[in-house]
């Protein structure tokens, strides 16, 4: 059996763990620039995480084991997901453990437990956060799957590496279905990763926060893990979008030689993606929670259009 | 054997008339009925061994059809006697019946049984009519036993309506005789069922179809077919419960028996399905009307009398339908229905005694108050609405099958009736058996033997039909072809 794929696998996970905070930092930096503030630099997230790790844990009296278990679980799912999405190379051993549906399900687990943790302490904010989070998710997930289905229809598969491979090997250049799917995917990614206009990661303003509300009671290493996992999630969604829609430059075979190039190209793409994200966020305003139905509805509509256009136009 | 069967109740009536209201009168009553049942069983064995037989100079006639009915009749009358012992004692304590009436009650009870058995066993269509009238007359005053205004009203209606009906039947019989005489010549021979069935092919169709109308209306009134049924709910609800039990358990069967006998002749004569159609019409109408009336009953015995109408409708419908399966089902249905229905009436009697009322809204908490009565009632109702594994499900299954074959368009109506009846009965019974025991409920020792016996029989017949029964039914079916 070949050894390289496994090496690449570990390499990818390591890089993934390492780069994720940097990507967040990059996004924040660009944001500061666009808003004319001076930024804390690319590496501020690392410092935050370090700081949090070194702190003691402050735990509410009535926190149950769920509250303490959740951060590790979130982290675990994030890492596993990171192993699944092909970023550097197409054939990764773990990819075949889980196709894209499983990927969505992994995020769902993390969300499920985060929501529970939000309710565990029994504060009004926690409950509010959980309620809203689950509502949004229940609207976002169908749209997400529709988008994915569109792609998987095009590539006749739900296995990620296969999807990437099909698109990579150029059988499909700029299909209308894919365009629609991409648009839908972007909207959903905004929702899932809790960015503006759905949620504002940078605020603790009670009535607008969703994700922050759930993790309000966390501290110390728990908070560190959660923060880190979120950064990975953001990174992951971006990587997923890149991999499925713009895979060019990724290492087609499990040959170690291609990896550096692939890495560079990926960095480049990430940079561009981050810039795009920042543009969107500065362009848009946070929505009221009940306007989100329209937002996600349109995402669903786009995805459906993508599917229809696959049947009709192709 | 046959004569014993007839004479026992007759003498029983006389004896009880003399014994009157002594302490041991009920026991004598039970003994007489038991003896009757023994005789009936003996007769059954005889017939099972040697097949149909004539007796008393062609005057009596026993075949598979009436022998099982007579066994059934004697059996149910025995269990009813057992039940009535405790029941009537309670009634006396409540002071609803007096000394004189008890004497009267016992005598009339035996006389009634005699009349019914005579109906079944006689070979003479005229005597059949007489016995039927006798059965009516012997029960009229039992219905009015309590002498309450409603009881008297009910009895009066029973008397008048059945009298009128039966009169029609006599006219029908006259016409029948007229037709038969032209074939068989003068003399009493012409009214003997054996002869009639032999030459039914040669009888004059036009006359017979006329005759059948009168017979149908006449005996149909006693079967309680809509729209001739109006006496039935009143009579059942106002009389003492043992009487209601035998009325709907037995008398209706007997009337149906007479009707079926006539139907066979008419079919034989006309060679068409004319009579059958009429019966089907009546049956279906009865089922539907009864089912819908069930929905709005308040009096418990009234409700179950309507259910009797419904079931008689089913049986009539099946007989009208004809054919092996349907007839088989109808025979079975007569059997299981009378068992289940009389069992229900036993429990109902106890229930209403425990609450001193027949209004269902006031009857509550039987499961807790008296498990036997409660469960007896519940199971009885489950049987009567045709839930498996009770026998009525089997018979209804057969009848439905036949309907789907011969008259598929009628199936939905049949099912509608059954479903509505199901809902109506269940709704009421559930509220009676369930719940806490109300304050005014009096505990009492129930006569459990009859109920258990009947339900056990119904259950057994439902899942396993003994061979001799099967054989009887098949021969009976052949007779009624």
């Amino acid at each position, binding site marked *: 059996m070949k050894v390289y794929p496994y090496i690449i696998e570990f390499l990818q996970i390591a890089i993934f763990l390492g780069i994720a905070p940097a990507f967040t930092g990059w996004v924040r930096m660009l944001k500061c620039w666009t808003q004319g503030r001076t930024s804390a630099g690319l590496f501020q997230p690392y410092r935050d995480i370090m700081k949090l790790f070194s702190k003691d844990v402050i735990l509410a009296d009535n926190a149950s084991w769920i509250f303490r278990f959740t951060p590790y679980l979130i982290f675990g799912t994030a890492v596993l997901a990171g192993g699944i999405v092909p970023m550097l190379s197409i054939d990764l051993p773990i990819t075949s453990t889980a196709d894209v549906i499983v990927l969505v399900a992994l995020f*769902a687990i993390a969300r499920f437990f985060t929501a529970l943790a939000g309710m565990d302490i029994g504060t009004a904010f926690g409950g509010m956060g959980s309620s809203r989070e689950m509502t949004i998710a229940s609207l976002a997930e169908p749209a997400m799957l529709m988008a994915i289905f569109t792609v998987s229809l095009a590539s006749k598969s739900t296995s990620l590496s296969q999807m990437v491979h099909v698109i990579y090997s150029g059988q499909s250049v700029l299909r209308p279905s894919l365009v629609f799917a991409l648009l839908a995917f972007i909207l959903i990614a905004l929702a899932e990763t809790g960015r503006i206009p759905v949620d504002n990661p940078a605020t603790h303003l009670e009535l607008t926060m969703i994700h922050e509300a759930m993790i309000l009671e966390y501290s110390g290493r728990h908070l560190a893990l959660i923060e880190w996992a979120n950064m990975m999630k953001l990174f992951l969604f971006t990587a997923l979008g890149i991999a499925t829609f713009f895979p060019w430059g990724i290492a087609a075979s499990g040959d170690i030689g291609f990896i550096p190039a692939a890495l560079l190209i990926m960095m480049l793409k990430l940079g561009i993606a981050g810039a795009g994200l920042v543009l969107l966020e500065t362009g848009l305003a946070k929505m009221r929670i009940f306007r989100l139905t329209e937002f996600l509805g349109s995402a669903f509509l786009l995805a459906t259009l993508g*599917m229809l256009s696959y049947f009709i136009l192709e | 054997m046959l004569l014993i069967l007839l004479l026992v109740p007759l003498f029983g009536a006389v004896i009880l008339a003399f014994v009157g209201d002594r302490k041991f009168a009920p026991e004598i009553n039970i003994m007489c009925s038991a003896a009757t049942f023994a005789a009936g069983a003996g007769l059954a064995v005889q017939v099972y061994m040697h097949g149909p037989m004539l007796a008393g100079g062609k005057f009596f006639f026993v075949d598979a059809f009436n022998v099982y009915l007579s066994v059934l009749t004697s059996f149910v009358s025995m269990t009813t006697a057992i039940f009535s012992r405790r029941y009537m004692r309670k009634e006396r304590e409540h002071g609803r019946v007096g000394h004189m009436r008890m004497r009267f009650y016992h005598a009339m009870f035996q006389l009634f049984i005699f009349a019914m058995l005579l109906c079944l066993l006689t070979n003479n269509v005229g005597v059949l009519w007489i016995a039927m009238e006798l059965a009516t007359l012997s029960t009229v005053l039992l219905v009015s036993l309590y002498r309450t205004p409603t009881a008297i009203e009910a009895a009066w209606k029973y008397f008048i*309506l059945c009298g009128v009906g039966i009169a029609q039947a006599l006219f029908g019989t006259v016409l029948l005789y007229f037709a038969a005489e032209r074939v068989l010549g003068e003399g009493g021979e012409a009214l003997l069922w054996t002869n009639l069935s032999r030459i039914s092919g040669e009888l004059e169709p036009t006359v017979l179809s*006329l005759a059948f109308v009168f017979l149908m209306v006449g005996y149909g009134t006693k079967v309680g077919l809509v729209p001739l049924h109006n006496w039935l709910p009143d009579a059942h609800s106002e009389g003492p419960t043992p009487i209601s039990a035998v009325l709907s358990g037995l008398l209706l069967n007997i009337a149906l028996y007479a009707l079926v006998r006539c139907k066979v002749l008419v079919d034989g004569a006309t060679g068409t399905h004319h009579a059958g159609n009429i019966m089907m019409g009546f049956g279906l109408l009865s089922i539907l009307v009864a089912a819908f009336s069930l929905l709005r009953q308040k009096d418990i015995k009234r409700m179950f009398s309507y259910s009797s109408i419904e079931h008689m409708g089913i049986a009539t419908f099946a007989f009208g339908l004809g054919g092996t399966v349907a007839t088989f089902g109808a025979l079975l249905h007569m059997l299981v229905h009378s068992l289940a229905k009389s069992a229900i009436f036993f429990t109902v009697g106890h229930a209403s005694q425990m609450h001193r009322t027949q209004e269902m809204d006031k009857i509550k908490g039987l499961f807790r108050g008296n498990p036997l009565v409660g469960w007896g009632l519940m199971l009885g109702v489950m049987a009567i609405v045709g*839930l*498996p594994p009770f026998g009525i499900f089997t018979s209804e299954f057969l009848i439905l099958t036949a309907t789907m*074959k011969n008259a598929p368009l009628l199936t939905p109506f049949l099912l509608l009736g059954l479903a509505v009846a199901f809902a109506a009965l269940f709704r009421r019974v*559930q509220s009676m058996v369930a719940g806490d025991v109300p304050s005014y409920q009096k505990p009492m020792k129930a006569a459990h033997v009859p109920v258990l016996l009947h339900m056990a029989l119904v259950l057994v017949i439902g899942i396993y039909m003994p061979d001799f029964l099967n054989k009887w039914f098949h021969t009976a079916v052949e007779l009624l072809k």
Partner: protein
Amino acid sequence: MNIIVSSVLLLFLSALLAPLFKSRQRLLINASFLLAAIASLLGAAGGIWVVGAGITSKLILPVGLPDLPFHLRLDPLAGFFITVICLLSLFVSLYSIGYVKGYLGKRPVTSLVVFYGLFLAGMLMVVLADDALFFLVSWEVMAAASYFLVMFEDELIENRRAAFLYMIVAHVGAIAILLSFGIMAGLTTGFESFSGYTFDAMRQAEFPLQWATAAFLLAFFGFAAKAGVVPLHVWLPEAHPVAPSNVSALMSGVMLKTAIYGIVRVSFDLLGGFPWWWGAIVLIFGLISAVMGVLYALMQHDLKRLLAYHSVENIGIILIGIGLSMIFTSYNMPLLAALALIAGLYHTMNHALFKGLLFMGAGAVLHATHERNMEEMGGLIHRMPWTAALFLVGCVSISALPPFNGFVSEWLTFQAFLLSPALPGPLLKLLIPLGAALLALTGALAAACFVKAFGVTFLGHWRGSRNPRVQEAGPTMRLGMILAALMCLFLGILPTAIIEWMDILTEQLVGDKIGTTAGAFGWMWLTPIASERASYSGSTVFLGILAVVAVVYLLLHVKPSAIHRVPIWDCGFAKINQRMQYNAASFSMPIRRIFGFLFNIKEQVKLTPRGVHPAFPMRLNYYLRIRDRFWGWLYKPVVETSFRLSRRVGRLQQGRIQAYLIYSFITIIVLLVFSR
């Protein structure tokens, strides 16, 4: 065969013995439920063996109608359902030993024990039956027994209403089934003999399409009424909550599955050769039930009621699989049909397990708190940790999250959906993927619902006004739940083994199997159709997450760092009390807003302002009532019409004897005219 029959007999025995031990209630409970457990164990073993060996055996009992004795037949399909039934009943019987003791001293449990046995026996007989008569007999035995179980606590009016409604719906369904069998039997033999009523005859027979359709529709109606498919589901959320919890576990877990069995048996086995739109009907009803079920479930605040509505949802998901399979079969694509069917059946088994688990958990909570209303609960995880953990497993499984079993079947269903483009019809091509989206919606909503269920019940603070002494469920109850939970996990991480075991079913019913391809990557990869198509390895996911969590945990705890327990911070708000928590109603508020049009909502807020200023109300009453719309649409009209009719009919009996005489007079005249 003999094993199964003997287990049935054992169950009857346990039912019949009960009245004898009337006086010794405690002994009665131990003995009879233990007996039931043993019987179920036997049954389960037999079922597993039958499916594994793929054998078919028959038996004809000497009872029943003379011309139509009871036929029994044990084939892999039956074996599969027997396995499902017996597995759950094994767990539940163990659980019951502890649970039912809760009634001791309150009420006699004899009837509960009796009908528990009859109920289980009835379900097994339904699956075994091989002729219409025996099928109906056992079907009604099952229905009647469960009716009495629902009515067990009969002093409550709501229980009686629920039981009555249940009985009526069940009976109407049974009538429909009877009709459909009648049609089939009639077409096979023309009613000439009763042999037409045996399933064998129906298998052999060829039916003309329109009659087959009639039979199928009737049967589907009947079974749907039993399975609680929308819009016939109304009885279900009434009846399941009020039954004793061990019974509701069985009813939701396996009784509904007998209806699924019926649908599969009739459509695939007895009728066969159906057009695509039969499948479409099943699919559509499945989708409607799934979505409506979960939405209604979200609106509930009664824990068991919520679970009952989830049964509607899951039945919907199962039907989706079956419907797809029927569509594929009708277009003669055996492989895809096999995939879809496996998905449906797999979910059948999963739902049995986790719904049973959840109801047992809810029962434990009820047992401890005597409370079904979630608004009165909270923080139970501290007082009953075992129950909480096991209930959580159930929640995760039913919300279709890996690595538990719910996800496997949902994943398979998705795969089946994604293969629909292979279908010829363009319409189907376009529409079926939308179904996939609905399924996704269902899954997500289910997750939301169970966050609510678990969060409100077990997390936070105790919300109730009264504060009962709550202690953990007893050992037997825990044992039952633990076993179920383990099964959930097992089915989640080792699906391939199960599917290879089940392959015989699809092989017999649709003529192909996915097992070989599923096994292609070894025991840990679930790859239906082809490995590059899609693949999932529950075990890897499980182990992966476990490994990462473990590693991280260890890394973080190399140097011990203190954990300070402090009062709640909550953004520094002052004194929060338990009334400030989110509760069930508030949790589901956003979704209620979004999907409000589907419900019949009555919502009002009453302020009683203090004198000085309306902005500072003394008290605020919030009233919310959510009704099932289908009541008004379907049930009320029927009831009202029948009562109107009965009033009409009542006029016949109007008291005056002259009128009665006129009736007979007219009857005579009419008949005479008619027959002259």
